[in-house]
């Protein structure tokens, strides 16, 4: 019900400049019904005793002061101030919550300290921590200097006015209200109201309203006192008679608006073009409530009532109504599906139940329960399927036309196309023939068990989209084909289909909404609560907005926003959710029927619900385009509570977990606010407004930015807020500390180097000392060795010069003398001397060679040596050593044979081998020959001597243990020096020696030389 009362006023100028205001009543009706929710200590308030309620129109928070603390309400949740979890400690009980003339909300505590509401939180005013009761309080409220007010103490009021004549305040006491005016540093009483009068101020003027509805204006009279001038009697408008327990009170909203509560009625009072208008806001105020405070959110039409001791009442307009069955009674289902509007305005659904309150009779269309899919043709023919078959009902003539059992199926989905009626059921596709008979045009060959069709829509003259329990199908008339074109990965039922200007909206049971166009299907994003997962049906209103029903309420979205989703990409689809707070008391809707939502003749829309029909008029629902704001209420650092002011300082480096508790203003439902955040350059994270907390674990050191963005879902754009904060580096990672590190490092390196230097120095000195000691020893040893060498050299020199050469000439001399001596004894002696001299020469020569070779490590550069000459000289040299002159020494080396070798070493080598042969050969010959094979030069010394065993030959070559030599003494005719020299020279000359010997047959020695 809507009632509007207007008081016509006209000004009457009296001598004392009194103004007579003429009031006349006007009636109108309230737009909405209201539902009231009680918030008390059990549901969010610290206490049930309300000490003040103030609505912050700018930041859109409601502040409620209770005896035990202050709470902030943002439309869906409460934030406490003053309790143990609050960042601001409000010590003591709150006495009042008031508003200054500039709109600032402030409160007073029992200890006389003041706190101020700034943006999102209460702040203790440091300048007025303790006030001296009312005088300072008034100074504060009116922004007077601290000592300006010096008058007597007066009470505290919520009705304070600053008008052109000065400051006024109304004080209500138990019996009467008094008007005080500030004059000369004090408030003086200028008017006393009657007990049945309530005062208010509009546009700088003061009025009194009596409980009988009469309104007087207060004007200034003689002596500065105010007088009441009757300006009018309020015509036919009668305020309800005040009954015990009923409230008659006026609440000042601001300087231009007041509210009158009269019993269950709430009026707004304003002056409009000189006329005082009383507008009924609601007549549904709760009875029997002692309402002490009233605030109205004029954007959302929400009423906030602060009671004396029963908490807070929040009254919200109900835009939706639930229509129940006409004959509803317990035990009978009130669930609604396919609706048909009856002529009397009632609605009959397919079960036959009639919804509505019209009492006039109207024909029943569903004479017995029918399936949920019905259809109305262009000509007004209504088709349904019941147990009789397919029933045709003429809506125009209001009569049954035909019942056909041609197609025996319980459920048919109908559509009219090309002047033909098609039916889709679980078996196939049927068509109504011109003769009125139904015939199956196509029988499905492959459909799953339990296949069921729901809504159908034509794409064009040839194609029909069919939603089913097995996904989305398309029937092509020209091909008479029925093919599935899409099946959701979860196998959700496709149930609703709506043609939005060629864009088909497809509602599923469990997988949200799809959009189909021109053979392409796209999945639309869900709402943040995923209510749209179960979407029942769609309908377009007169303002081109799509309404969709779900199991959790209704959604509305501008159709262009949906089309933009298809054409411009995902973006942000604008939508608005309607649920319990909007007046839908049973949220679960029904679907899978045809029709689903319908438009009624009065402009209302009707949706089938699980418990009745949900009806509303979209044009009467105000659109609220409030931009929600987000605030950081609390900051937890390592689980320790801090105020958001800590963000203004550098944060400790010991942070392991940083948590932000956010407050979102706007007085919007949580479904209508999207909230996202990100740190620095991360991606956006969405969080629930109902649990608006952000955690940041192990944040890095240094600068950070926290971005928080909010969006009213009906608006497509986000509002982003940015918070910067800085986390200190630990001292050991501070950039400046690196210089210290560098210095320490340099110092360490220097110290290390210095220590190492000292260590090395000491070691060096030790080494030097040791080396000196060793050098001294070595020098002494060297000197000793040098002396030994010199001694050896002298021995060699002596052997060479004083033994070897004299022996040679001793032999020569002895032989010559022997030849001359005739006496046999002497001759024999000389021969013995000559032979011995020769033997000694050979032994000495070999010993000399051995001594020389013993100190030889490498040979000089090789030379081309005439081998024939060398062998000839050797044979000549060794000739005298033969045991038997008959032994023949044969040089088989070809004349002119040159080999690359070391001549002296070769000579000594061959000398020793030939001498061995001479010693072991008493008969026969000794021959020396050579063979050249590629790079190998062989010298063969072969004799016909006594030969030797294999082990002896091996010993001679290897020089290994003599113990291995068999019968060594038998063959051992020399002292071994010869073969030692041979082995040394073979090694030095990189040659190889082979000895082949047979006892009593002779020995063959082969020398192999590599020719480079």
């Amino acid at each position, binding site marked *: 019900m809507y009632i509007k009362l207007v008081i016509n006023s006209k000004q009457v100028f009296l001598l004392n400049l009194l103004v007579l205001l003429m009031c006349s009543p006007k009636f109108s009706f309230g737009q909405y019904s209201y539902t009231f929710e009680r918030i008390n200590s059990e549901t969010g308030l610290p206490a049930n005793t309300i000490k003040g309620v103030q609505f912050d129109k700018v930041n859109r928070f409601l502040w409620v002061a209770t005896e035990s603390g202050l709470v902030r309400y943002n439309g869906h949740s409460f934030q406490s101030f003053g309790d143990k979890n609050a960042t601001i400690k409000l010590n003591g009980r709150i006495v009042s919550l008031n508003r200054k003339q500039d709109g600032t909300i402030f409160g007073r505590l029992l200890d006389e300290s003041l706190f101020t509401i700034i943006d999102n939180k209460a702040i203790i005013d440091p300048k007025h921590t303790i006030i001296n009761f009312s005088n300072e309080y008034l100074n504060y409220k009116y922004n007077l200097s601290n000592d300006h007010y010096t008058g007597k103490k007066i009470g505290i009021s919520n009705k304070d006015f600053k008008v052109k004549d000065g400051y006024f305040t109304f004080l209500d006491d138990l019996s009467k209200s008094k008007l005080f005016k500030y004059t000369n540093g004090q408030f003086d009483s200028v008017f006393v109201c009657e007990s049945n009068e309530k005062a208010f101020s509009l546009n700088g003027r003061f009025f009194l309203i009596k409980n009988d509805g009469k309104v007087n204006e207060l004007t200034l009279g003689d002596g500065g006192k105010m007088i009441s001038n009757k300006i009018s009697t309020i015509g036919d408008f009668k305020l309800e008679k005040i009954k015990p327990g009923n409230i008659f009170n006026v609440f000042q909203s601001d300087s231009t608006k007041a509210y009158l509560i009269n019993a269950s009625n709430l009026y707004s009072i304003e002056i409009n073009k000189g006329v005082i208008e009383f507008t009924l806001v609601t007549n549904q105020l709760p009875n029997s409530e002692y309402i002490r405070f009233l605030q109205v959110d004029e954007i959302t039409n929400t009423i906030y009532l602060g009671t004396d001791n029963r908490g807070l009442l929040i009254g919200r307009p109900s835009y939706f109504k639930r229509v129940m069955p006409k004959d509803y009674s317990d035990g009978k289902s009130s669930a609604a599906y396919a609706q048909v509007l009856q002529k009397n305005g009632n609605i009959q659904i397919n079960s036959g139940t009639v919804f509505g309150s019209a009492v006039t009779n109207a024909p029943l269309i569903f004479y017995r329960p029918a399936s949920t899919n019905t259809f109305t043709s262009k000509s007004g023919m209504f088709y349904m399927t019941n147990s009789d078959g397919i029933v045709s009902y003429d809506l125009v003539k209001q009569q049954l036309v035909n019942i056909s059992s041609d197609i025996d199926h319980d459920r048919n989905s109908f559509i009219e196309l090309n002047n033909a009626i098609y039916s889709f059921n679980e078996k196939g596709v049927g068509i109504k023939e011109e003769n009125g008979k139904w015939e199956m045009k196509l029988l499905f060959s492959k459909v799953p068990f339990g296949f069921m069709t729901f809504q159908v829509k034509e794409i064009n003259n040839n194609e029909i989209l069919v939603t089913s329990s097995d996904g989305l199908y398309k029937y092509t008339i020209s091909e008479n084909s029925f093919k599935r074109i899409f099946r959701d990965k979860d196998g959700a039922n496709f149930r609703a289909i709506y043609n939005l200007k060629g864009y088909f909206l497809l509602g599923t049971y469990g997988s949200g909404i799809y959009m189909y166009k021109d053979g392409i299907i796209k999945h639309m994003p869900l709402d943040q609560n995923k209510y749209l997962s179960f979407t029942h049906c769609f309908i377009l209103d007169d303002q081109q907005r799509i309404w969709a029903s779900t199991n959790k309420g209704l959604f509305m979205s501008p159709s262009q926003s949906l089309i933009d989703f298809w054409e411009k990409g995902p973006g942000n689809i604008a939508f608005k959710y309607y649920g319990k707070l909007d007046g839908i008391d049973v949220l679960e809707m029904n679907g899978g029927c045809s029709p689903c939502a319908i438009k009624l003749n009065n402009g209302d829309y009707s949706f089938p619900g699980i418990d009745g029909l949900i009806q509303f008029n979209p044009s009467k629902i105000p659109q609220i385009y409030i931009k929600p704001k987000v605030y950081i209420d609390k900051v937890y650092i390592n689980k320790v509570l801090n105020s958001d002011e800590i963000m203004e300082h550098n944060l400790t480096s010991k942070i392991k977990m940083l948590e932000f508790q956010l407050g979102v203003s706007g007085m919007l439902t949580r479904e209508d606010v999207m909230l996202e955040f990100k740190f620095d350059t991360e991606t956006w994270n969405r969080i629930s407004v109902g649990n608006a907390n952000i955690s940041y674990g192990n944040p890095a050191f240094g600068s950070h930015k926290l971005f928080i963005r909010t969006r009213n879902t009906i608006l497509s754009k986000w509002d982003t807020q940015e918070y910067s904060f800085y986390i200190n580096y630990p001292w050991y990672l501070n950039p400046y500390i690196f210089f210290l590190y560098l210095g320490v490092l340099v110092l360490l390196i220097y110290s290390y180097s210095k220590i190492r230097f000292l260590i090395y120095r000491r070691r060096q000195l030790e080494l030097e000392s040791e080396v000196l000691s060793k050098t001294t020893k070595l020098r002494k040893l060297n000197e000793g060795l*040098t002396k030994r*060498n*010199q*001694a050896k*050299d*002298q021995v*060699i*020199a002596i052997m*060479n*010069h*004083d033994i070897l*050469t*004299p022996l*040679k*000439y*001793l*032999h*020569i*001399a002895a*032989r*010559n*003398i022997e030849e001359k001596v005739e006496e046999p004894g002497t001759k024999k002696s000389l021969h013995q001397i000559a032979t011995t001299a020769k033997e000694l020469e050979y032994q000495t020569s070999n010993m000399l060679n051995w001594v*020389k*070779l013993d*100190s*030889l*490590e490498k*040979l*000089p*550069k090789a*030379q081309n040596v005439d081998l024939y000459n060398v062998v000839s*000289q050797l044979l*000549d*040299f060794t*000739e*005298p050593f033969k045991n038997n002159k008959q032994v023949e020494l044969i040089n088989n080396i070809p004349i002119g044979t040159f080999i690359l070798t*070391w001549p*002296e070493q070769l000579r000594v080598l061959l000398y020793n081998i030939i001498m061995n042969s001479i010693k072991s050969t008493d008969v026969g010959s000794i021959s020396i020959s050579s063979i050249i094979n590629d790079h190998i030069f062989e010298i063969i010394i072969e004799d016909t001597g006594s030969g030797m065993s294999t082990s002896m030959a091996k010993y001679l070559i290897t020089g290994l243990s003599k113990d291995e030599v068999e019968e060594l003494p038998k063959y051992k005719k020399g002292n071994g020096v010869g073969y030692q020299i041979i082995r040394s020279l073979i090694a030095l000359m990189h040659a190889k020696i082979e000895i082949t010997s047979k006892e009593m047959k002779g020995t063959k020695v082969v020398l192999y030389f590599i020719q480079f």
Partner: protein
Amino acid sequence: METKVLIADDHSIVRMGLSAILNKLQVKHVDEVSNCAQLMQQLQAETYTHLILDIILPDGNSLEIIENINNLYPNISILIHSMQPIEVYGKILKKYKIHSYLYKGVSEHEINYHLESFIKGVTMNFSKVIENDENPFSTLAVRELEVLHYLLNGYRTKEISTMLGLKMNTISTIKSVIFDKVKAESFTHLLQLAHVHQISY
């Protein structure tokens, strides 16, 4: 003219052996001396056709007196009879008038052959042996060979300077020159080189 041969060698048995060979070659007049002083006295006392001269004699190096002998007795034929291979003295001997060179290490046969050729006045062709530069000791000068002889025999600088009547610095300089010429890195290395190249002491 009767062949008269003077043998200068510090070993009597060598001189005896050489005399025996010469006698076998029908040389009737063979005298012997054992040092340089006796040599010069004997040359002054007697006229000889042939001189068999050992290089290192107890009182000095006979190479130092060959030039005098050449000048004083230009008709005398000289055979150097030495413990050193001919390569060592080849270049030096070229400066003097030397008719033959007999290395003491050769066979009796060769000794006989060389002596016979020498007595018969056959002059040896030094050019082939002198051209053999493989032996680094062939680059040494007379004084250097003399100092080398004493070094290889184990004498110290001071002893050598005393024996040769030279200053120690001079001997040190000569030693340095010897080491440079034969590319010896140490005294031991010098000994090894001497062994390899059959330098007798």
